[in-house]
């Protein structure tokens, strides 16, 4: 059978957003675990400022509400469940590209999260398998995707999300520069995916001399550029 090497616009879009949402699951869970640690014996003031960076309004009244909301509330676009469901929505359309083995890690995550949600589990550590399966998902994707363009699109999505989240959470220059480098590494492998004009703007802005995420205008400009960088 002649192997198709081109990707439809729809599949390219799904691959990119699968990469973004799956990375968001991973990072959000990572941050929630840090937050959960503070909650054990801390006060709301200790962790609330972190989440304001995700534009979450004060919809959760108690620590338990907040934890449940961040874990399972599908109406909250920043929740892990919302990101995992969106990742799955994209992945399910890509079975023959990413293969059933790769897809199965997301299936297991969704099943576990639903089970924990139904039991109203607030212990974030119960979702450790979601982290493990996310990493297994990426490993499986790298190993199994025969179409390299498809892999690079997913990796671009992953790197865009990583950079977006690092910027929102105001990580330092070294970390941001490294994330941007990683993103460009994948874009170089598949030409034509980045908007060159935006890329040159980001090249100009992500330099040590200019770097200042305390400057809201600078930060918002970076976020806007990062989110418009990939052409899918």
């Amino acid at each position: 059978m002649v192997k198709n090497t081109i990707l439809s616009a729809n599949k390219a879009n799904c691959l990119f957003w699968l990469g973004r949402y799956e990375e968001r699951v991973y990072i959000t869970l990572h941050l929630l675990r840090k937050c959960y640690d503070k909650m054990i014996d801390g006060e709301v003031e200790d962790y609330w400022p972190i989440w304001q960076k995700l534009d979450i309004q004060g919809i959760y009244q108690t620590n338990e509400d907040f934890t449940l909301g961040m874990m399972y509330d599908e109406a909250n676009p920043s929740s892990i469940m919302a990101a995992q469901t969106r990742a799955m929505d994209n992945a399910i359309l890509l079975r023959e590209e990413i293969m059933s083995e790769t897809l199965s890690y997301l299936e297991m995550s969704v099943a576990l999260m639903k089970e924990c949600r139904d039991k109203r589990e607030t212990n974030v550590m119960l979702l450790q398998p979601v982290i493990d399966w996310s990493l297994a998902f990426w490993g499986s994707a790298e190993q199994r995707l025969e179409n390299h363009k498809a892999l690079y699109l997913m990796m671009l999505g992953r790197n865009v999300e990583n950079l977006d989240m690092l910027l929102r959470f105001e990580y330092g220059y070294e970390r941001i520069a490294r994330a941007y480098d990683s993103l460009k590494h994948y874009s170089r492998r598949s030409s034509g995916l980045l908007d060159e004009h935006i890329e040159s703007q980001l090249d100009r802005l992500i330099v040590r001399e200019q770097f200042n995420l305390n400057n809201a205008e600078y930060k918002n400009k970076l976020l806007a550029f990062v989110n418009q960088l990939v052409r899918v």
Partner: protein
Amino acid sequence: MNIKLTELTDSRDSVNKWMERYGVRFGVYKNGVFNEQLFPFDPVPRIIGKEDWAYLEKGLRQRVMALNKFLWDVYHEKKIIKDGIVPEEFVYSSKGYLPECEGISPTGGVYAHIAGIDLVEGKDGQWYVLEDNLRIPSGASYPMIARQITRRVSPATFASHAIAENRGYADLLRDMMDDMNDGRGISVILTPGRYNSAYFEHSYLAEKTGATLAYPGDLYVEDNKVYYSGIYKERTRVGCIYRRVSDEYMDPLVFEASSLLGIPNVMQAYKAGNVALVNAIGNGVADDKGIYYFVPKMVEYYLGEKPILQNAPTYLPYFKEDYDYVLANMQRLVIKDVSEAGGYGVVFGKDLTEEQLDELKALIIDQPRRWIAQEVIDFKDLEILEDDGVSTSPKGLVERKADLRAFVVSGKDTRVWCSGLTRFSRNPNSFVVNSSQGGGFKDTWVMTE
């Protein structure tokens, strides 16, 4: 046959966990809302002995070869009508007959590339064909993946029994698509999309065959050739479309104008011989429940052979003698509306009240061509593992009605897949096994010794 099933039955939960892991589901619309659910799997297999299978294989090949010849004939010379074997009313009044397909010669003369033949085994061991599904038969992916999983969770069972391999279905499909493609380009599986009830199967078969899963909008026709369109408008030629979209939605310029699922002008490309459509358009005329009655006659007419497989005893109210018989014996017959599928439009006379029987009689009198009636076959029950407290067996086994959908793949050759989809009713009082109506499935073992 002495089969130790303990390891399999003990592993049911593991099997279902693996099914969940691989997303083995089917979709159901209820009250307009789409829901996906796991297809309940029963670990106790249907077992078909080597000799029985040899008989079925021969009969299935024969039947599908005759059906392919019938389809060619209907859309070309119509000899079977002219010779009075099949009345023309049954052909031209069939919803599946499409005049737009007249004179089209599909690649290799094959119409029914994938045929799903539904059979049941009577208590006397006699097999009967209940239905021929020649449009878009589904279900092969479930036993494929079930076998993969059961071999993992219960290796000793497979080590100790001589069970024919069934995971080669994808190879059969791939070979057939390659035959039909004839080197013109890539092969695709065209799906209506995620919210189709068989979407899992579409994507799984694409993965296993190496075909591209194409969605509405991915394909277009230019100069009577079909192309798959890429993200930057690059394109690649398509030589074979295994379409899982119904005939009426395939080409909005020829059939249903409002269809967003099809490919405008694909019929032109098909007519020009530039693309193979798997299955061919217009096959519905041969899997019409009314035409079913004539299939054994087709075998004799086209192949000059005695039919190996038997139909269930069937009556056509269209014929006066059958009409009288059906009206007089409705209470003990099963009545089927030829325009329905998926287990719908099937009623058992014994389940109807006097008033309902009268209503049905009136419908038959009004439109005799629309109905067929069959004797209720006392088909063999199969054991299933039930944990709802109904079973009195120490092993938790109960007996339920089950059928077998056998798959026959026709490219250059006609080949029978050495397995099938065994569906069973979970309702102890029901003969309806369709997944859309709550049925489950089990693996089908063909023994090699």
